[in-house]
């Protein structure tokens, strides 16, 4: 085994790719700041118990663990949103904030295909806000961010966990059973979901609704179909909420960028309202993912309704490349070389040009010939007595 190599599922990012990543980051920062979000960073290392003993406990096999000098178990940040919920509940007394972050998270298990173990993310959280307008703004901003990064033909796929929660709450399932049904429905495997529900003694009406769930996606027409499937108050409230969100999005001119899927079964205990994924056809997994998680901060001692999303920046890079939307790699504007004894003049010249906004390199060696190796637009050679332009 070579220790010059990296473990599975993590990657170095080399200059060419890193420059694209940073330019995407710059564009996002501008977009976040323009909408009044404030930056935040959470510590990369936290206590294992912070995440092992909460209602939304993270599976221990997914956390990177190590021990502190006093023997306590530590983890590498396993989830940015949970970290920020912890910060909001324990350190932001006003309980209301619009935050943005560039944070990596680590998932010890996921690797291969579209998944890496070190996940480079950007994201926003709107803390202390409720209602359809807040949700719609978040969705619209998610679409804006995808465009801002240079992606074209983006779709935001929107669902609401309340619909599935409502259907399932009538069946008297245990948490484990509900989770199994959710996982089946999330895979659009209505067959298995029906089998599980039948075993639990679900009513025929519920079974009919669950059977239809995997096909309940498309445009705004799904709301009418969904409304006819159930009389459950919670499920109907979810549909009504999505209709309101849809109306606001149409009002703001985003209708063409959204589609709806009431069969989306993201974690029912983590999410409490709308859920959504940002999709581009060039990448087989979402580039953006988010939702409403009003109860998340409860575990850290404070109820803070919240909605937000995270962007998987590595997937965005793949999408940009496949769409042919990579930003151009900048070349240097000027290269300077000098003869021995003219270092001061050469450096002064470099500073002069940089002050004018140019990107300038100063060669590490003396001599005219080193300039031949640069791809800068302008090449300068400085002698002891003055400047020579080449």
């Amino acid at each position, binding site marked *: 085994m070579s220790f010059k190599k990296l473990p599975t599922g993590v990657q170095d990012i080399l200059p060419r790719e890193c420059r694209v990543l940073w330019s995407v980051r710059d564009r996002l920062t501008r977009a976040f700041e323009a909408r009044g979000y404030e930056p935040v960073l959470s510590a990369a290392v936290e206590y294992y118990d912070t995440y092992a003993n909460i209602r939304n406990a993270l599976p221990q096999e997914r956390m990177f663990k190590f021990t502190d000098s006093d023997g306590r178990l530590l983890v590498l940040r396993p989830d940015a949103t949970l970290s920020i919920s912890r910060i909001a509940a324990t350190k932001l007394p006003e309980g209301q904030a619009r935050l943005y972050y560039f944070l990596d998270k680590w998932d010890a298990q996921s690797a291969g*295909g*579209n998944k890496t173990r070190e996940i480079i993310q950007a994201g926003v959280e709107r803390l202390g806000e409720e209602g359809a307008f807040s949700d719609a703004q978040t969705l619209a901003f998610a679409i804006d961010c995808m465009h801002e990064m240079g992606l074209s*033909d983006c*779709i935001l*796929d929107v669902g609401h966990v309340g619909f599935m929660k409502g259907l399932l709450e009538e069946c008297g399932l245990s948490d484990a059973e509900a989770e199994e049904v959710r996982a089946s429905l999330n*895979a*659009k*495997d209505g*067959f298995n979901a029906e089998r599980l529900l039948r075993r639990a003694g679900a009513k025929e009406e519920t079974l009919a609704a669950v059977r239809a769930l*995997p096909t309940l*996606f*498309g445009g705004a027409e799904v709301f009418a179909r969904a409304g006819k499937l159930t009389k459950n108050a919670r499920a109907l409230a979810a549909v009504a909420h999505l209709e309101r969100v849809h109306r606001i999005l149409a009002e703001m001119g985003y209708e063409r960028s959204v*589609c709806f*899927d009431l069969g989306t079964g993201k974690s029912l205990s983590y999410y409490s309202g709308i859920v959504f994924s940002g*999709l*581009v*056809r060039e*990448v*087989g*997994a*979402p580039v953006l993912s988010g939702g409403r998680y009003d109860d998340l901060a409860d575990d850290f001692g404070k109820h803070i309704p919240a909605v937000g999303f995270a962007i998987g920046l590595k997937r965005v890079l793949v999408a940009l490349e496949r769409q042919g939307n990579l930003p151009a790699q900048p070349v240097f504007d000027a290269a300077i070389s000098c003869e021995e004894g003219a270092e001061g003049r050469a450096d002064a010249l470099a500073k002069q040009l940089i002050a004018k906004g140019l990107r300038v390199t100063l060669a590490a060696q003396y001599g005219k010939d080193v300039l031949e190796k640069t791809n800068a637009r302008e090449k300068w050679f400085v002698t002891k007595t003055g400047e020579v332009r080449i």
Partner: protein
Amino acid sequence: MINFALPKGRLAEKSAELLRTCGVDTSVLEEDTRKLVLESADRRYGFFLVKPADVPAYVEAGVADLGIVGKDTLIEEGRDLYEMLDLKMGECRLSIAGYPERRDVLTNPHLRVATKYVNTARRVFADREEIEIIPLHGSIELAPVTGLADVIFDVVQTGSTLKANGLVVLEDVYTGITARLVANKVSLKTKAEEVLPLIEKLREAVS
């Protein structure tokens, strides 16, 4: 263009036939060729011919938009994709099999299980015996016969191979294992206008 990941082997011909009845030009699949990437004459469909166990990987990554694969493989691979339809073909079950007179081995404190379905076996036995899994790639029935394992965990279609080797099904773990139409989670939404009509046709064809 819709890209399909299709399984070589047992399900290959039936898959092509089903697609043909739904108006997909599959004539390119009948040609005798060693090419693994094929394109229909009208350029509307691409076909990747892969090992059945590899279909989920292609579809999850979005390299293929749709795929046809056995439920047994889906359970084993546990990939993040949509299972759109039960194609109701190639029906079999996933069962534990062994010698009829040695049924008691199932309660052995240390059970040796030979299987192709390593992940599934680990899950199935997780709450039961402590087991030793012996991963094999074919002729699983040979394992108990030669004493390599106590039981096997495998797909059973007619049971004739088991019978020929003096083995019987000791327990059916999953029944109703059939071929499924799977879809990439992104393609279903981003290529909806191409993918959905075809899924509807397939739904009608199998119901």
